[in-house]
């Protein structure tokens, strides 16, 4: 299989003979086009009297030759080709519709930085607008004016309540255990292992319980919010809601955010308790502290302030998780990967915001002396 051709400045004759099936000889193709570019003959004649079988691999060569000829206004004569091949090639030129919108190419470096900065600006505006909407929705919900299906709220409640109990218990129990272990190593050197109980009690109630609940709920509940709402976006269901005049924030975000805000304090209390039990297990079984003594020290270490600070953190985390999950769900793209991307973003950003806000809250509490 080869493509024979003679060429000078005036005239190029390309002769096809034999079969061209899976014709993929790079060399011949490249040489043909190199010569075509060099010579740029005024007329090109295609000769296919002896052409046998062919497939698209031949057609594509001719397609490129014709395109070249058209671009440089060379005369091309296809009458020597078999009827069906000519027809096939005509087809490729028949409806040569150019896309209405041309795609963006890669931006130069500086422009890319600029556009990224603008992106951040726009998305932070979008984000704060979303949070404002959510707050309005919550107020509307409190005054009973929001359109929300009760069943959605129950489902969200179910998901954020008893279905999360097992994992929250297990993880906080283990965290209490680990805290106690790590604390014991140091405290033992002073013979003060009894203070393991206070350490665990303070750490769990003030921050660790809430953080563990936050991380677990970001992973299971926040992710599922983003995935559910995201696939609704893909299915154009959110557009349907909007055209019915129903606010997506009321209808989709409100039941989720309220249920998470309602359940998260209880989950935090559960986590606190399980952490203390985990610490107790280490204290009693490893450090040989009597259960009664452990409990007394724990009780003395517990303070309402720390407990309330923990619950407050829980509320903040619940809000962050629900907002991130719903936000990335609603602003999900329309591709197949969009939902996956939305879920990832929801979890990652929820955890990042949780940590950032914890830093800020801790600082502020320090200032007011709590």
């Amino acid at each position: 299989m080869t493509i024979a051709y003679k060429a000078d400045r005036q005239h190029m004759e390309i002769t096809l003979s034999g079969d061209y099936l899976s014709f993929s000889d790079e060399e011949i193709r490249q040489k043909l086009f190199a010569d075509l570019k060099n010579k740029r003959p005024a007329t090109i004649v295609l000769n296919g009297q002896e052409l046998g079988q062919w497939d698209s691999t031949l057609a594509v060569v001719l397609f490129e030759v014709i395109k070249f000829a058209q671009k440089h206004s060379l005369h091309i004569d296809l009458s020597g080709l078999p009827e069906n091949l000519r027809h096939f090639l005509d087809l490729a030129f028949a409806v040569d519709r150019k896309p209405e919108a041309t795609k963006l190419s890669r931006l130069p470096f500086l422009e890319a930085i600029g556009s990224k900065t603008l992106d951040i600006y726009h998305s932070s505006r979008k984000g704060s607008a979303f949070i404002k909407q959510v707050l309005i929705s919550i107020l509307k919900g409190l005054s009973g004016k929001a359109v929300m299906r009760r069943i959605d709220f129950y489902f969200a409640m179910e998901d954020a309540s008893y279905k999360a109990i097992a994992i929250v218990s297990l993880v906080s129990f283990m965290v209490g255990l680990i805290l106690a272990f790590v604390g014991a190593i140091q405290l033992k050197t002073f013979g003060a292992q009894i203070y393991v109980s206070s350490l665990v009690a303070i750490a769990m109630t003030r921050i660790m319980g809430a953080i563990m609940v936050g991380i677990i709920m970001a992973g299971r509940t926040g992710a599922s919010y983003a995935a559910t709402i995201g696939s609704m976006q893909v299915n154009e269901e959110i557009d349907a809601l909007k055209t019915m005049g129903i606010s997506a924030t009321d209808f989709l975000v409100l039941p989720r955010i309220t249920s998470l805000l309602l359940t998260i304090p209880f989950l935090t209390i559960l986590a606190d308790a399980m952490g203390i039990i985990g610490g107790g297990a280490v204290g009693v079984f490893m450090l040989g502290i009597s259960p009664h003594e452990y409990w007394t020290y724990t009780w003395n270490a517990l303070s309402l302030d720390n407990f309330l600070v923990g619950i407050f953190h829980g509320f903040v985390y619940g809000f962050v998780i629900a907002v991130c999950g719903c936000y990335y769900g609603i602003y999900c793209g329309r591709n197949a990967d969009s939902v996956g991307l939305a879920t990832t973003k929801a979890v990652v950003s929820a955890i990042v915001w949780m940590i950032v806000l914890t830093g800020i809250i801790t600082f502020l509490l320090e200032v007011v002396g709590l």
Partner: protein
Amino acid sequence: MIKTAETSPIQADKITIAYGDFVLLKDLDFKVNKHDVFIIMGGSGCGKSSLLRVLTGLQNPSGGEVFINGTNFTKAEETAKNDIMKKCGILYQSGALFSSMTLAENIALPLQQYTDYSPSLISELVSFKLALVGLAGFEEFYPSEISGGMKKRAGLARALALDPEIVYFDEPSAGLDPISSKLLDDLIIDLNRSLGTTIVVVTHELSSIFAIGTNSIFLDGETKSIIAGGNPNDLLRNPPNETVRRFLTRGEK
């Protein structure tokens, strides 16, 4: 391998399709000739799509066999089956483009999978196939960025990537405006004429049936069998029974 005396691209031999106890179609015998534009018609739910799934090897019939180019496709081994499937292009109802890939990547996929063509040849072939279906210049678009009719044409470009001998269409005009639908019909005829591709179309769009069909079968849900066959225009002139006549005349009394 068993070869029938005269090898037609597709031959159905006593095909029965059933879902559990529910028999959908029973003992279908028919033959698609080379270069046919073969129409499978019949009312909704009579099993056209199921038959297409059987013909394309996506589903096994409950009884009977399909011969593709004389080879027993139904009983073939995995590798032989794949070789046959490679020679068949399918345009699914919705286009079935992979939404996370650009049109170019969609069409390049079978080429990368089954040929050892160089990347530059593949990209030229991709552009050529897109041009064939009137989508030149849309290489870098994602399926979500083009219209329904364009998706179907892009799906066709992908179905044509490997120069198939047989192309199947499941309701090509469903969900298309008359102009897009006509465009697709014209494409089907052009492919059939220029490449000699054998074409099987499931449709109940009358204008398509008469414009493109050279041969057909008419499936009937009640008798679970083929109640008519042949050139659709002939069928319209001499309908063999009342069901076919009413179908082809849009229910005229």
